[in-house]
C-alpha cells in the first residue's frame, strides 16, 4: 500500500522554551512548577521510604516470628506468690519438647494450671522468642483433711480459706504438720477434684485469729470439727490433750479466744490444777466447762495437798464480770 502523504500539524511545533525566552511571569511559573515538582518528588520519596520502612519492620516481625518457632524447652518461668516451683509447672503443663510459643494454647495451659486447685489465678505470658512465663496466685491452706478414695490408702489434702480442697504440692511437710485436721465434713466430687467446702470462711477466720492472737493455744489444736457447723453454727476444736472447745461460728472469735485463754489459765491456777475436758464458748456469757475426774491416788511420798473441795464433774462460769 502506498504511504499517504503526511502534512505537519501545528502540534509538531516544539513547545519547549528556553529560559532566556521566559518573561518574569514565566520564570515565576517555572520556579513554582519546579518547586511543586520537587515537593511531589519529596512526597513520593517519603512515601517510598515509608513503604520501605514498613516492609523492613514487617521483615523484622517476620524474623521474630521465626524465633517463636524455637522450642521452648526449659525456658519456662514460674512467677508465684506461693511455693510452687518450675519443676511442678513443667510437670503440670506437660509441654512437648519441641513445642514453640506459637504452638501452645494459652487457654488450655491456664486450665491445666488451675485444675490443681492450689492455684487461684494464672496468666500465661509468651515472651518471644522462646520464654513461657506463668504468673500464678496460690491459695493458702488453713487445714488438712484425710481422703480415702475407694480402697486406696488415705491421702492428705489441704483446704484453703475459700473451701477449695487440693492435693498440695511443694509444701514443707513440717508446715503441713502444723495444720489442724478437718473433721465432720462431707466431700463431694466435682470434676477431677472436690467441691469447695461450705463454711470454711468462718473456720479460716477462727484459725487465723487463733494463730495470730493465741498462738500457744493454736499450736495444741489438732482437729477442727465442722459436724455441727451447718446445724448449730458451732465449730469444735480438739486439742492434743483431749480438750474439746466449742466456738460459736457467728460470734466474735476474738472474745471467745480470750474467754478460752482465761478459763484455761484459771483452771491451771487452781490448786490443784483442774484438768478440763470440754469448754463450750458458743453460749455467750455462760460458758459450760467440763472438768476431768480427779486422780485416784497421789503418788507415794508426796506431800498431801490441803483439803480442797472436790470439783464437780461439770460446772459453769459466768464470765461477764471477770471479762
Amino acid at each position, binding site marked *: 500500500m502506498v504511504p499517504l502523504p503526511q502534512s505537519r500539524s501545528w502540534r509538531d511545533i516544539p513547545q519547549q522554551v528556553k529560559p532566556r525566552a521566559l*518573561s518574569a511571569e514565566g520564570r515565576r511559573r517555572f520556579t513554582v512548577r519546579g518547586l511543586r515538582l520537587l515537593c*511531589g518528588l519529596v512526597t*513520593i520519596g517519603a512515601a517510598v521510604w515509608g513503604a520501605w520502612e514498613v516492609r523492613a519492620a514487617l521483615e523484622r516481625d517476620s524474623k521474630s516470628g521465626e524465633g517463636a518457632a524455637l522450642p521452648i524447652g526449659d525456658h519456662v518461668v514460674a512467677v508465684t506468690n506461693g511455693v510452687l516451683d518450675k519443676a511442678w509447672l513443667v510437670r503440670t503443663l506437660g509441654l512437648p519438647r519441641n513445642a514453640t510459643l506459637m504452638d501452645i494454647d494459652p487457654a488450655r495451659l491456664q486450665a491445666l494450671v488451675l485444675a490443681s486447685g492450689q492455684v487461684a489465678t494464672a496468666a500465661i505470658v509468651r515472651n518471644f522468642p522462646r520464654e513461657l512465663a506463668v504468673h500464678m496466685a496460690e491459695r493458702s491452706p488453713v487445714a488438712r483433711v484425710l481422703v480415702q478414695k475407694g480402697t486406696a490408702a488415705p491421702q492428705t489434702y489441704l483446704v484453703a480459706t475459700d473451701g477449695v480442697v487440693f492435693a498440695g504440692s511443694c509444701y514443707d511437710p513440717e508446715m503441713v504438720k502444723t495444720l489442724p485436721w478437718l473433721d465432720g465434713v462431707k466431700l463431694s466430687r466435682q470434676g477431677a477434684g472436690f467441691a469447695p467446702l461450705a463454711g470454711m470462711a468462718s473456720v479460716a477466720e477462727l484459725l487465723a485469729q487463733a494463730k495470730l492472737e493465741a498462738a500457744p493455744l493454736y499450736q495444741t489444736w489438732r482437729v477442727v470439727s465442722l459436724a455441727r457447723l451447718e446445724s448449730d453454727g458451732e465449730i469444735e476444736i480438739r486439742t492434743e490433750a483431749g480438750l474439746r472447745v466449742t466456738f460459736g461460728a457467728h460470734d466474735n472469735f476474738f472474745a471467745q479466744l480470750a474467754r478460752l485463754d482465761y478459763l484455761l489459765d484459771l483452771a491451771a491456777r487452781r490448786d490443784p490444777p483442774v484438768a478440763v475436758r470440754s469448754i463450750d464458748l458458743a453460749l455467750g456469757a455462760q460458758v459450760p466447762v467440763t472438768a476431768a475426774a480427779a486422780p485416784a491416788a497421789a503418788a507415794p511420798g508426796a506431800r498431801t495437798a490441803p483439803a480442797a473441795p472436790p470439783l464437780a464433774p461439770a460446772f459453769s462460769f459466768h464470765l461477764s464480770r471477770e471479762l
Partner: protein
Amino acid sequence: MSSNHTFIGAVDIGTAKVTVLVGEYTGRELAIIGRGECPSHGVIKGSIADYKAASDCAHSALEQAERDAGERIDCVFLAQSGAHLEGFYNEAAVNVKAADNMIDRNDIRMVCDLAKAKELPAGRMVVHHIRRPFRVDGRLVPGSPENLVGQRLEVGYWTVHGQEQRLADTIHVIRGCNLEVRELVLSSLASGHMVTTPEERQNGVLAIDIGAGTTDFVLYRDGVPHTTGVVPIGGTHLTNDLSIGLRLTVGQAEKLKLRFGRALVKARDKADKVWLDGNYAIGDRQFPRLAIEQITAARSWELLEVVRKKLGHSFSPETCASGVVLTGGTAKLPALAECAAKVFDLPVHLGEAPGWVAENLREPGYHTALGLLYYGISAHVEGATPRRRGGFLRNVTRLFASS
C-alpha cells in the same frame, strides 16, 4: 479544589487588544471565572511583529485573568488569525469493502485518511482539518455512516493551514509564560461558534468577525464549517483612511470614527460639520460629517466586498439561508449591518452571545475568547478535543498546586 477541574485560559491576541478568559472545566461543565484584558502592542494584522511587546501584553492579560479567577491556568486555548492562514478543500472516496456493503470503521478511517492526505508546501502547517458531512452513494449523511449500507463512501475536508513561523511565534508568546498551548483554534471558528445557533449553521450562515487588523469569516453549511478565511483588513484601516483623508493623527481619526463613522452615508448636507473634540479648546477643529461617513462607508463596503470575493463560489444567497452574522469590535460601526445586507444580498444582524453568557462578557470583543473555550472543548472539529490530562506525577503536582 478537586483534581478533576481544569483551568483553561482562552487567549485572543488581537491587533487592538489581548483578551484572556479563564474557564473552569469539570469534564461536563464549563464556567467562566476570570477575565483579563490588555491593549495590544507588537501585533500587526493578527501576526506577531514585536515578540517582546506582544509577550508583555499577553502575559499581563494572563496574569490579570489569573488574579481575577483566583486560580492558576493549566493550559491555553489560543486563537489564531492572520493573513497567512489559508484553506483548501480536498475530498476522497472509497468503495465499501464488506460483501454486504455495510460500512465499518475501517472504511471510515480509510476515507478520512485519504481526504486529509494532502502534502502542504514547505513551511506550511495544518491548523484545522474540518470535516464536511459524509456521503454514501451521493446521499448526505449528517452523522457517522458506520453500519449504513452503500457502495461508495465519500468525505471532504476543509483544511486550514498557516505559515510555520507565524504559528510558532504565537505559540512561543504563550510558552514564554510557561503555559502549554493545548489547542490552536481559528478565530473565525471560535467567534462563529459563539454567535450562530446550531439551526443557523444547519441552514447555512456566514459569520464575519471584523476586528481591528483582520476580518475573519466562516461560512457554515449543513451544520459544519464549510469555508473559512481571513482578510487582512479591519477597523484600523478605517481609522487610517480617516487619518489620511482628513489629515489627522491616528488617535484623532479613531475618535472621529467611533463618534461619527457610519458604514452607509446618511448625511446629505455638506455644511453639516462636527467638532473633533467638541470642547472648543485650542486645536479643536470642525470636519464635514459627510466626508467622515463617505470615507468609512467606502472602506466598509470594500471590506465586505473583499470577503465576498474571497468566498467565491462557496457563497451564494441560496445556500446561506440564515443570512450573515457580524461580530467583532468594528461590527459596532453604525449601519454596518445594512451595508453588509446590500453587499451579500442577505439579511444581516449583529451577533450576540447566547443568553447564558454573563452580561459583562456579551460585548462583541469577547466572542472570540468565549468561542475558544466552548469550541475548543467541544469535539466539532477532529483533534479539537482536549487531550486527557494524565500522568501520576502531574496529578501529584496538581495536588500540591491546589493545596
